[in-house]
């Protein structure tokens, strides 16, 4: 049979996250995402200079909605973001994904100063690169992002989420603090490209954007996200520079909120052990997104993280 090898004119931008002492930061190492010039894991066809990264989620409030079997993994640290982050570092995360949910006006409504202090604590407690997200309320996030960016200045973090409504503030904040930016769009490839253009039009390097095309868990829109990611990747390989950014997916977040990962055996005996089910669901979702082309996976359960790391190592074998 003929061995078909595609030669693509383009590649995905390579993004470095984190800054060591030499770069003016305090991290012990940096990580790189993207850089690939072929579809995922086709080592015979092109180069995959960096393997997909695993970020582990850390919240600055207790995740009351999480199922017990996930919470149990972090029990002693759930009320302390810095210790929680340190635990994730020890568990083998490539980077920390810090979510500042305490800022939510419908919840604790923490101030910019308060969340900035948390960022500082997490940076002090850990030595791996950091990703920082707001609470998801556009207005509030816009009002805290500049302080967050400033407190982490020089650490070359990845900050988000820049969306259509707030991208100007976020871009300015990322620019001022020397960070990279996650651009999020609601599962629409045209809006995805447009947001990247709008951000780069502000003078922000298009090679410092990470695309979040939206994430759906398995059974909850996964196929739509898969398709969007695949189309984005094909556009990057065809040299569309406004579609050539690394892609991030929030696997854990979309796994642990669905009923399949929350309903226990008494409620759904036919679904089997909840303890295993949730972990397997997160693994299945993550492995799917690896094949779609996700460069950064944000995950939760240590067992799922471990399993996916092994899986990536195998996929990276030439």
């Amino acid at each position: 049979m003929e061995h078909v090898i595609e030669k693509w004119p383009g590649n995905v931008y390579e993004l470095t996250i984190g800054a060591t002492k030499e770069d003016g930061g305090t991290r012990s190492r940096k990580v790189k995402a993207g850089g690939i010039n072929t579809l995922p894991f086709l080592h015979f066809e092109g180069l995959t200079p960096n393997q997909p990264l695993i970020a582990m989620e850390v919240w600055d409030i207790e995740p009351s909605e999480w199922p017990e079997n996930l919470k149990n993994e972090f029990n002693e640290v759930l009320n302390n973001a810095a210790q929680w982050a340190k635990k994730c570092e020890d568990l083998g995360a490539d980077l920390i994904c810090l979510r500042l949910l305490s800022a939510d006006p419908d919840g604790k409504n923490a101030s910019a100063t308060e969340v900035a202090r948390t960022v500082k604590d997490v940076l002090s407690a850990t030595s791996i690169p950091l990703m920082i997200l707001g609470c998801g309320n556009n207005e509030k996030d816009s009002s805290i992002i500049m302080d967050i960016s400033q407190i982490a200045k020089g650490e070359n973090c990845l900050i988000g989420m820049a969306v259509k409504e707030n991208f100007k503030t976020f871009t300015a904040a990322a620019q001022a603090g020397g960070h990279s930016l996650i651009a999020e769009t609601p599962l629409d490839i045209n809006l995805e490209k447009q947001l990247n253009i709008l951000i780069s039009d502000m003078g922000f390097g298009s090679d410092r954007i990470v695309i979040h095309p939206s994430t759906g868990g398995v059974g909850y829109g996964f196929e739509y996200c898969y398709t969007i990611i695949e189309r984005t990747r094909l556009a990057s390989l065809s040299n569309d520079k406004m579609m050539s950014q690394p892609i991030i997916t929030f696997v854990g977040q979309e796994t642990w909120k669905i009923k399949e990962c929350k309903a226990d055996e008494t409620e759904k005996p036919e679904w089997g052990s909840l303890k295993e089910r949730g972990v397997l669901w997160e693994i299945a979702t993550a492995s799917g997104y690896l094949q779609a082309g996700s460069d950064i996976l944000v995950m939760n359960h240590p067992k799922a993280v471990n399993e996916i790391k092994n899986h990536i190592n195998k996929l990276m074998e030439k």
Partner: protein
Amino acid sequence: MLIIGEKINGMFKNVKEAIQSKNKSIIHEIAKKQLDAGANVLDVNVGPASVEPLKDMEWLIHSIREISNAPLAIDTTKRDVMELGLSIAGPDSFINSASGQKEKLDMLLPLAKKYKSKVIALTMTKSGVPANAESRLEIAANIVASCMEHEVEVENLYIDAVILPVNVAQEHANAVLETIRQCKLICDPAPKTILGLSNVSQGTIDRPLVDRTFLAMALAAGLDAAILNPLDKELMNVMITAELLLGKNIYCDSYLEAYGKK
């Protein structure tokens, strides 16, 4: 679509004067403007008035090379000027142009092989440009065969189906479109197709309108490249929009601006 900018041509008054007075800054400016506007390749022609075409070609290429390494299309009918141009312009240059005439192919294809250049070949012979698509395709097939003989890869061949001015040869436009469509069927991998676009509008009242319309039609027929004026913004916008409608790029509201963005 591959765009070859047509503005560095001694036929134009400013270029002619630049060559005569050896004014490099004019050439730099025209080259830069075309590249900024989206040209991938720059056509270089010393013009009919040049008394020393060898020297003028050398001067033009060296001038362009001071500001850009973009591939060049060496546009001349003289073999020695062509060889000199290819030798100093570097690989990925274009020979502009060969035709279906055997002597021309035998003269130029060895140069294409030697300098690893691409070849633009017109579907015409000594007896001129045929009026129908069938005869154009027959010439194209002969050119493909010649390339194979001379070990020039067919992927590096650009067939120019020769569009004539619509006010003198109206029936040709359709024949050219048909030729572009069927060129892809000659062999696999197929030769690429190209047009010297502005010829279609020679002598018409609204030249830009005729150029734009024909470009959109030719793109729909499968055109791969064109020699045109990239400084005509409307023309470029039509090209970008046509390619968008053909699904070559992903739509977004700022798609015109996004085109070619680095």
